């Protein structure tokens, strides 16, 4: 076994450990289909096995999210699936799938903000998740979604403003 191969092996293993579940969550939100999401994520890690480390080291998470997103959008196009976060027309879509129910012990405000999230336009939901769930920077979100950084900033600002307004409304959920 060459040391190089060994390093690559450790690299892929670490990438799976760190990112598999968050990638799954992200694709499930894009597609609304668990089985398809699993295939896409596995497929992506197989691609990672073939990728020279030097080309992706330092932005592995960004690379993985970019690749799964492209694959998910391909599925949407080919299979005519209803898009959750589709580009362009996303603003006009109404949330089709509720977010997974928060755990019972979750604090009330958590439940509240999670229940408000599906009311946002899909492209806002996507950047909110990439930013606040996955911790990507504006720049990384821009690379993953092919939106401009200005656009990412605008979507997040608008999403936060809406959530803030809804959360403070007395009649809110």
């Amino acid at each position, binding site marked *: *076994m060459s040391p190089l191969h060994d*390093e690559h*092996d450790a690299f*892929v*293993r670490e990438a*799976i*450990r*760190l*990112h*598999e*579940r*968050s990638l*799954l*969550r992200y694709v*499930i939100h894009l597609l609304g289909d668990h089985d398809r*999401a*699993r*295939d896409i*994520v*596995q*497929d992506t*890690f*197989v691609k990672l*096995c*073939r990728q020279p480390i*030097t080309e992706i*080291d*330092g*932005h*592995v*998470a*960004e690379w993985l999210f970019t690749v799964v997103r492209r694959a998910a959008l391909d599925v949407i196009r080919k299979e005519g699936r209803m898009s959750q976060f589709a580009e362009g027309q996303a603003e006009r879509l109404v949330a089709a799938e509720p*977010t*997974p129910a*928060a*755990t019972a012990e*979750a*604090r009330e*405000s*958590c*439940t509240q*903000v*999670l229940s408000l999230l599906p009311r946002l336009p899909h492209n806002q939901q996507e950047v*909110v998740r990439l930013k*606040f*769930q996955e911790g*990507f*920077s*504006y720049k*990384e979100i821009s690379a993953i979604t092919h939106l401009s950084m200005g656009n990412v*900033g*605008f979507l*997040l*600002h*608008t999403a*936060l*403003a809406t*959530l*803030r307004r809804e*959360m403070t409304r007395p009649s809110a959920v």
Partner: protein
Amino acid sequence: MPKIDQNDPRLTAYALDEMPAAERAEFEKHLSDDPAARDAIAEIRRTAGALADALAAEPLPERSISYPLAPHQSHWLRQLWAESWTIWVPLGAAAVFAVFFWRVYLPAQQRQHELASRGTAVPSHPSGVPIEVAFTESDSSAAQPAASKPRTDSPETPTGIETASTTLKTAYFLTARQNPTSRFAVNVGSAAYADVRRSLEAGERPSTGMVRIEELVNSFRYSYPQPSGDASLALSTEMHAAPWADGHLLVRIGLQGRAASVSDPTPAATRDAAREHLTASAARDIRALAARDVKVQVDFNPEKVLAYRLIGYENRLLKGVAEAATNDDLAAGRSVTALYEIVPLPPLPRSAVAAKTPPPPTPDPSDTAEWLTVKLRYSEPGVAQGRSVIVPLHANVAAETPTPSADFKFAAAVAGFGLILQDNPNRGTATWDMVEELAKAGIATEDTTASEQRRDFVSLVKKAREIEPAETPAATGKPAAQ
């Protein structure tokens, strides 16, 4: 000045630390006389914190990949298996090797190391001595700081900083092999301490997003050595056993800016010449600055350091290249503290660390290879030529100064406080008792204001433990729940 519109996305960019430093300075001027905008930013941070907390609590889907990637997991992989078994055979072999490495080779190494370190005299080598070098004119990056890239000895890959940005979001350690270079920003705010204090005093546990450890640590004064000669900055380092993790070391990097003075004590000829062209207000700005374009870079030696993490800075590291490559100014008299937790290679014997003794030196006394190198570069206000300071840290830095300084203990206490409040998966064995003990041990300092601040912190720790009595430390070294 016109008020900032509530719909201006810059408010969110600022609140989330996504604004480049140059733009941020300009924006802060607008903020200074716009209370509505400041309120909006506080609101955005609150919403963002609630959102991040809620999203973090959302359950993750179950894992479905076992490694090495098994061929029966999906139709796609079945197909791949049929086509190219060549991938799986080497991966399987790699797994066999990995088992051998962790189960057989490493334990053997550790035993060997324990034997070697037993009874070894502590050799003393000069280390931690700053080496000052002036930048030459030919260094174009020093002459044009705005467009410069930090100079490194290791080959600069375009992804050097992003490494930290993508991996650290899980608050987990980075391997020195994969990520030998780390940088941290010097323009750290201190708002988090006030926020955390307010929250604790109101009897509430602060939200995870509110607890910014780098801001907490930098809310206090430290008695670092003042710059000597005509230097604007002084760099000091310290390395001791990490209080909350057996076998880990904690490295404190302190940066102290020259104190502000109305009559510049060291008016270098070049500086005066440059100043003649400056307006009065610019000259005032210069006096308020200790140094500009301050960049700190830490290079880890993968032969000595298995892994490391920068404590705190999670939000800032997320910004990746854009932020870390931005120039930073340090105000006169300010200090900056950064803490790195490092996992040495080979692992330190548990017995040595459990006794809270300083880590033993490497078995070979002639081995003076540095563990890490702190590189600082900056420009004097009003002077084009840059300066740099390089401080290598050896294993025996800790042996030379066996007792942690009060500053070290206190900074470690504040970091531990943050790790517990964050419920950080890598808080190790940190407990309120440990935090309180360290903080009390760190109160003693000649600076009376600092002592006052520190006593105040001890009382805040007492409040915190009433609200968050969880004393069960998280499993040591357990990776983040990602």
